[in-house]
């Protein structure tokens, strides 16, 4: 790895992207972690060696803190020798231009002619409702009203701790056009398990293709949602209009209404 820096207004090379501290390609990375070793010079050396094993150059342990009971915490800076080719990266994204509430309502009125029935819930033992409420309820989020306020949607918010079976039963009962599922707790991948089960159940009942099924939550990406068999996934900062637009477009595209 040659550390060059600029000799003029040299732009970075996107095919060989490395971390940047204060000099182009210096590779500077900050790390912190604990080791199950008593606070000692040997522990500090272990921390240094470990960072070397990550393929880093010049690891410098700037801080070692005795956590007690045979554990030590470290703050390390080092230089990353690896690079990535940013020109080769493709991230799946939800397509279509952003639409406002008004535009979504207009699209539904024009192309579907009846309000779409949306069913929302936080499933499993997850008790977090703030995310799904932000999308569904009148109040909304970040100044953007929730789907409840749209003419184009008839929304049902089942709240949290909803068993997948109950959600599916309710979907059948209300002839839902779309299911909106929130998962916030991600410890031991519990979100993936709960989300996966729902898709299995919908497929088993032959319902999966008859509705739009999307999920959301702070650790949900569109990519992960696709992997889990959802039509879309919405992460942090999502606002209702984007979700509404996606649902409406899907229903139209797939001729579900």
């Amino acid at each position, binding site marked *: 790895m040659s550390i060059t820096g600029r000799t003029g207004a040299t732009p970075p090379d996107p095919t060989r992207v490395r971390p940047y501290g204060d000099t182009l390609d210096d590779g500077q990375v900050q790390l912190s972690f604990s080791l199950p070793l008593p606070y000692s010079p040997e522990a500090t050396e272990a921390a240094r060696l470990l960072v070397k094993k990550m393929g880093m150059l010049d690891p410098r342990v700037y801080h070692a*803190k005795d956590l007690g009971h045979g554990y030590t915490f470290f703050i390390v800076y080092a230089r990353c020798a690896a690079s990535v080719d940013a020109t080769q990266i493709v991230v799946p994204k939800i397509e279509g231009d952003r639409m406002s509430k008004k535009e979504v309502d207009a699209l539904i009125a024009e192309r579907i002619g009846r309000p779409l029935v949306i069913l929302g819930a936080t499933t499993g033992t997850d008790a977090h409702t703030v995310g799904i409420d932000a999308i569904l309820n009148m109040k909304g989020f970040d100044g953007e009203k929730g789907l409840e306020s749209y003419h184009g949607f008839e929304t049902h918010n089942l709240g949290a701790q909803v068993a997948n079976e109950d959600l599916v039963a309710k979907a059948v009962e209300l002839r839902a056009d779309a299911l909106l599922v929130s998962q916030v707790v991600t410890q031991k991948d519990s979100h993936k398990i709960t989300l996966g089960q729902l898709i299995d159940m919908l497929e088993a009942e032959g319902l999966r293709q008859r509705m739009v099924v999307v999920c959301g939550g702070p650790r949900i990406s569109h990519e992960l949602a696709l992997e889990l068999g959802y039509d879309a996934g919405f992460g942090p900062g999502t606002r209702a209009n984007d979700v509404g637009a996606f649902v409406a477009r899907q229903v139209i595209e797939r001729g579900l209404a």
Partner: protein
Amino acid sequence: MSHETDSKLGLDPAAVASCRVAADAIATDIDGFVRRHTTVAVERTVTRLLGVDGVDADAVPLPNVLVDRLQAAGRLGEGVARPLVAAVAATGREPREVAEAVSAGELDLLAVPEPGEAELRQLGARLAQQAVDRVAANRAERARLQAEMQTHPDPLLYVIVATGNIYEDAVQGVTAAEEGADVIAVIRSTGQSLLDYVPFGATTEGFGGTYATQENFRIMRRALDEASARNGRYAMLCNYCSGLCMPEIAAMGALERLDMMLNDALYGILFRDINPQRTLVDQYFSRMINAWAGVIINTGEDNYLTTDDAIEATHTVLASQFINEALAARCGLVPAQMGLGHAMEMDPMAKDGFLMELAQAQLVRECFPEHRLKYMPPTKYMTGDIFRGLIQDALFNLVGVWTRQGIQLLGMHTEAMHTPHMADRAIAIESAKYVMNNARSLADEVEFKPGGLIRRRAASTVAATVELLTEVRDLGLFEALAQGRFAAVKRSPTGGRGLDGVAERAPDYYNPIEDALRASLRLEA
């Protein structure tokens, strides 16, 4: 403290007094309801305190075996003590042996002939007194240990451990105690509050926490006692006494010398959708146990600001604290045991938000001058930006020491991602110690300008609180909850989980533990 000259906020003592009057009326109303009912959890608690423990072959806890039998027979309203004590009298066995026999199918709990009422009550009272004495002994032991060791000035530093594996929890708790934490709270596995039984044994695979089991309590208590002895500082142990097994957990905690318990029916109603009738009845009994055990309870008003807006809805927190104070007092809890909860949850991007938080924290302090207030750090507005998060928590710690809170729940800079890693906690403890020591005397030094933003904010919150409490008094607490007055959540008195575990007390309802506790706590019978 609410007196004009003592108040840094220039609070109107009359307004604060009317909050207390309204809250007392609300509590009186609930008190009447509670005294007419019992629940499966209350009855299971009675069995536990009478010495029943363990699980049957299907891993069903013996307290459930006994109480389920009672309930199945439609006799829950009589209380489990009657048949249980009768069985003890009839068989000469200990209550635990009786339960084992019932579970083994050797004994039909409901077919045992009752001795005379006087004999039953005498035996019941003796067994109950043993339980009450055992709890008193734990309380004395705590007092002895605390007297021997150093104490830390308020706010106490409170941290959580939440690995899902009690053995990891113990390691984490011990390091935290070594670093200076005063209180170690063990977080429960996500699903437990909805379980209508208490799991048994040590947990090694919980979700976001371990189960509150008696064995887990023991493992943690032992680890922390050893650490306390090494450090010369008593490490308090805290767990969650809420959900469908509220009073059972109180009993377990009392038996294992827990020092602090999250204990609030309103939390369960609003955030776990537990039936309001069920959990208010459960809470009453659990709080008597906590009162007698010398446990500090923590209430959950801080959570309101996660579903409602902290700038708009602070008065709901204060109103609920007055209600919780009135409810707790009726169970024998003294102010020093009341960890009334509140939180610093405003959008950090709000201009002058720091001043508003200061006003709120000082207001709560002045309304509850002798209480061990529990102050919750920023959570909702914590993001993946751990560097900003550290600063949010530092400002929170500054407000905490400045307004002399009682229990400071330490914020974690990793709040938005995971339950705390060992180092996250160490960083949090170190920063709290730093900030609080560096600004230790701020409260003595600083005054708030009359007519300024801080005083105005406090005054308007009090005014809104008076209004809300008056309204709740007029509606009744059940109806107020149904109308969504708290946390922007609506909960009907007949909705949620656990209503089927509630029964009206029969005329011959018998609960020797309750009787003994009322006597010990000098509560009205």
